[in-house]
């Protein structure tokens, strides 16, 4: 019988790599991600290192999902815009982005997405301040946090760009 474990954990949006690392460390220890929810991760027992987990900002395009399925990847679930995939390790290395161009394009997509939500919060917050809404400071706080997130992800992009000066 496979046992199910639920863990609640919070990751800041710029820490998606750390989140993925943690999920893979769990898989290494025989705890395979089997379901996701808001700050919620469900695991089932598996052979240690049987699967590799990858996170993606979902493209919402059928063609891409088909390609992933053809390549043997399985979608575990989605939270908001983040999709969680797994693939058996015996099918070879599993990465979603493995050259500098596509890694940079991926970060750009994340920045654009966070940017939209940041602007929405800023807009609602400013409007709320004018209208005396009690929720306005919360929107402003979200906007500040998201702007900070964009800064952090920009930092990741700069690291890639430096690498590109010497490598393709």
């Amino acid at each position, binding site marked *: 019988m496979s046992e199910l474990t639920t863990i609640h954990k919070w990751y800041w949006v710029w820490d998606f790599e750390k989140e993925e690392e943690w999920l893979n460390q769990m898989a290494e220890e025989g705890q395979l991600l089997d379901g996701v929810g808001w700050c919620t991760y469900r695991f089932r027992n598996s052979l240690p290192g049987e699967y590799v987990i990858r996170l*993606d900002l979902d*493209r919402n395009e059928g*063609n*891409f999902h*088909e*390609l*992933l399925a*053809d*390549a043997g*990847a399985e979608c575990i679930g989605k939270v908001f815009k983040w999709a969680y995939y797994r693939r058996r390790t015996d099918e*070879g*290395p599993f*990465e*979603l*982005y*493995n*050259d500098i*161009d*596509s890694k940079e*394009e*991926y970060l750009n997509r994340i920045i654009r997405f966070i940017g939209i939500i940041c602007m929405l919060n800023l807009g609602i917050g400013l409007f709320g301040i004018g209208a005396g809404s009690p929720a306005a400071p919360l929107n402003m706080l979200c906007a500040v946090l998201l702007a900070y997130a964009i800064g952090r992800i920009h930092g990741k992009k700069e690291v890639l760009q430096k690498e590109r000066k010497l490598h*393709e």
Partner: protein
Amino acid sequence: MNEAYALTETTYYILLALYQPNHGYGIMQKAEELSSGRVRLAAGTLYGALNGMCEKGWIIQLPVESGSRRKEYCLTEAGYAVLDNELARLEKLVNDGKKVLEETI
């Protein structure tokens, strides 16, 4: 056709893999086969590159045949030309390198 710029390894191998029409997963397999297992195109990398190459007009999507659910891509005239130019450029690189190394010996 952007002759001044070198192609990335990803773009080069996708063009090679599309010398015959192929679908997404087929391109992954072909690139791996052509490079004796060295080039593994990640799904997100391949998908983004295919979209970019369609926009540039180097490849096109073939109409989906009834009964088949996978979209196939093929090279356009421009795509063949880009591949020819890149091959000529790479040959030059290799020859230049060899010349220098042979002179040293």
